[in-house]
């Protein structure tokens, strides 16, 4: 685990209240990508509340980046990334459920026709 030395730093920053974090450029990129992916599978802010959350946090992260509040930016961006990933996963699950419903409808229709034919 590489986070052990981080604990001390975190404790210190928490006490001192000053942020010495580096700019989370890679995290910002990942978050942007996750948002794009969620949108690409058809998630919309109207239908998926997690996407709305993600976009809000991503905007906040961008603002934090501009203010050089890198720790806040990282927190917002990390949460936004997972919000977006959850939005994507929810859309895909919904689609698989719809596919299942279509199949069930077809099967019911086939069964009915078979019932009629016999």
């Amino acid at each position, binding site marked *: 685990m590489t986070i052990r030395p981080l*604990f001390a730093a975190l404790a210190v920053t928490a006490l001192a209240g000053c942020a010495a974090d580096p700019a989370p450029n890679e995290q910002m990129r990942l978050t942007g990508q996750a948002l794009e992916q969620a949108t690409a599978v058809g998630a919309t802010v109207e239908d998926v509340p997690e996407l709305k959350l993600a976009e809000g946090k991503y905007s906040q992260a961008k603002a934090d980046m501009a203010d050089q509040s890198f720790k806040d930016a990282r*927190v917002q961006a990390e949460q936004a990334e997972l919000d977006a990933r959850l939005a994507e*996963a929810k859309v895909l699950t919904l689609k698989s459920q719809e596919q299942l419903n279509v*199949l069930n409808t077809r099967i019911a229709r086939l069964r009915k026709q078979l019932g009629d*034919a016999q």
Partner: protein
Amino acid sequence: MKLKNGVLGGLLLASLYGCAGQHSDVALQQAYNDFQKVKEDSNVLRIAPKDVIRAGESLARADRLSSYWGSGADVQHYAYLSQRYSEIARQHSEKVLNEERAAKLELERQRLQLALREAKLLSVQQQGKWLEEQIISLATTQTDRGLVMTLGDVLFDTGEAELKSSANRTVLKIVQFLQLNPKRVVRIEGYTDSTGGKQENRKLSRDRAQAVADMLMDLGVDDKRIHVEGYGDEYPVEANASERGRAQNRRVEIVFSDEKGQLGAAR
């Protein structure tokens, strides 16, 4: 699977420290509960092990941070991430389970579709049987030559080979019957009464049979399935002495083969 359980078990957190504040305690507890649920779900473990591990790692981090004073916000953050990973794992596994269900249903659908096709085919065959009964009742007799249908003299004018339009219904029924029984073939036999010369009658009888054959072909019956014969005034069904008898002898007979296409021998 066993190994994975062990790893995840190692990530299990027993104690929740109270020093990180009320809010982060609640967040930590919720994350812990969510993680427990996905960790104990064998489907989620099978389908989305990575997300479950990440949920455990984030939770472990939140738990460790909770022992530090003033780390409430960080605890809440990692607890949040952990909860998200648990939920993502649950969604992924739900999706894959749906896909697995769909694959099974697709097989079921194909099976039913096949069954339905067979049932339809059966009903067409039954319809064919029904039509066969109709045709039999229409004007056929089961003879030693097979199923024979007689088109009477009313369908031809005296000395003419042209089929009258009143024959249409009957001919259409024959076409339909042959379409439903694609292996059956027919022999169309023409007959005349004894009026006129032998040679002339033979030609006239053949022309009459051919007229019926032509119409069948026009309606889509393959010519390979139609044999044409002209027997002239041979094989009368009645004595030629009376007009009524002669009328009955002026006829075209359609001999149907059996279902396999076996036609009785020609006369």
